[in-house]
């Protein structure tokens, strides 16, 4: 974060150009004050949750045998998570994790897509709190599943992969310790945060640049080009929002599957 700030601070923009800084992620407190106040990110978290709940209620409150409209859309979403993620990655005992995976997928997608929804325009996942919390939830779940199914043998399975010459454990066990218990939650959260943070920054720079370039006759042509690219980037952000939600969900499934079936 400080590296990003330093990078942004060192650039010297032309006179009159309002450069975006990481301040665009600092949202004012809506309720309360201090570090634990209720800010825009917290509000968007509830908005994202409300969107997901509303979509599911609308789709499945009065389900039809032959799905139409929104029910059709949400059913394909549910089927995708169940068949392509839960069953394919974990196996048939993955069915019981469908509610968790489904909630993760749709909540992260809704929180991401808020970044390009007019009037919201800030992904709730572009601050560390939500990705970190979700990663902690996933960490607790896959470890709990492992302990529930294998007891303390879970740790033995994780730290000492079977079928390896004993001497090699000196090399492999530290890696497994770090990779499973530290790197997994870290990469889960940082991947999501980094993508949404960078995407939001990119859009801000392009549209502020458009406004600056359009204000002078000399640079109008560049302003039009910047605007065109900015619109393209909004489309790209839709792709990133889906992709990041998908990657987070499928990695959750891979980790749960690994805890359930350590032999693989």
């Amino acid at each position, binding site marked *: 974060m400080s590296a990003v700030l330093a990078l942004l601070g060192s650039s010297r923009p032309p006179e009159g150009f309002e450069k975006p800084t990481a301040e665009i992620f600092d949202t004012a407190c809506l309720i309360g004050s201090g570090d634990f106040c209720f800010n825009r990110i917290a509000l968007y978290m509830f908005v994202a949750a409300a969107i997901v709940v509303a979509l599911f209620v609308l789709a499945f409150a009065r389900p039809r045998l032959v799905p139409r409209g929104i029910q059709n859309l949400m059913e394909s979403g549910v089927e995708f998570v169940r068949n*392509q*993620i839960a069953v*394919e*990655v974990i*196996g048939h005992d993955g069915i019981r994790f469908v509610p968790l995976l489904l909630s993760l997928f749709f909540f992260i997608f809704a929180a991401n897509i808020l970044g390009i929804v007019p009037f919201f325009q800030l992904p709730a996942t572009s601050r560390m709190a939500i990705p970190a919390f979700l990663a902690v939830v996933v960490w607790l779940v896959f470890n709990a599943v492992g302990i529930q199914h294998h007891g303390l043998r879970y740790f033995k399975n994780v730290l000492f*992969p*079977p*079928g*390896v010459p004993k001497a*090699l454990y000196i*090399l*492999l066990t*530290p*890696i*497994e*310790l*770090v*990779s499973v218990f*530290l*790197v*997994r939650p870290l*990469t889960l959260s940082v991947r999501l945060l980094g993508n949404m943070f960078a995407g939001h920054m990119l859009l801000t720079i392009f549209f502020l640049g458009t406004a600056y370039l359009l204000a002078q006759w000399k640079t109008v042509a560049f302003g039009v080009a910047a605007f065109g690219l900015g619109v393209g980037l909004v489309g790209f952000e839709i792709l990133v929002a889906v992709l990041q939600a998908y*990657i987070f969900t*499928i*990695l959750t*499934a*891979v*980790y749960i599957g*690994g805890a359930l079936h350590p*032999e*693989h």
Partner: protein
Amino acid sequence: MAGRTDRGGSWAAAGEAWAVIGTLAAGIVTWGAIGYLVDRLAGFRWLFLPIGMVIGVAAAIYLVYVRYGRDDHDRPT
């Protein structure tokens, strides 16, 4: 990849690819950190850190083979 991909198709493979990257990174970081500590304790500069990183990535590649790449048939039971 038979052990895993019997159950999963290309979607599962995409998830595993990310998990493999995590393992490789963990290998470099873990043994790199151990090498760095050895450097600090023994008073070397940049000797065991690169050695540790090379050992780490080699061990991580082997670990990826053990976890994801080994065929079920030649696995000792």
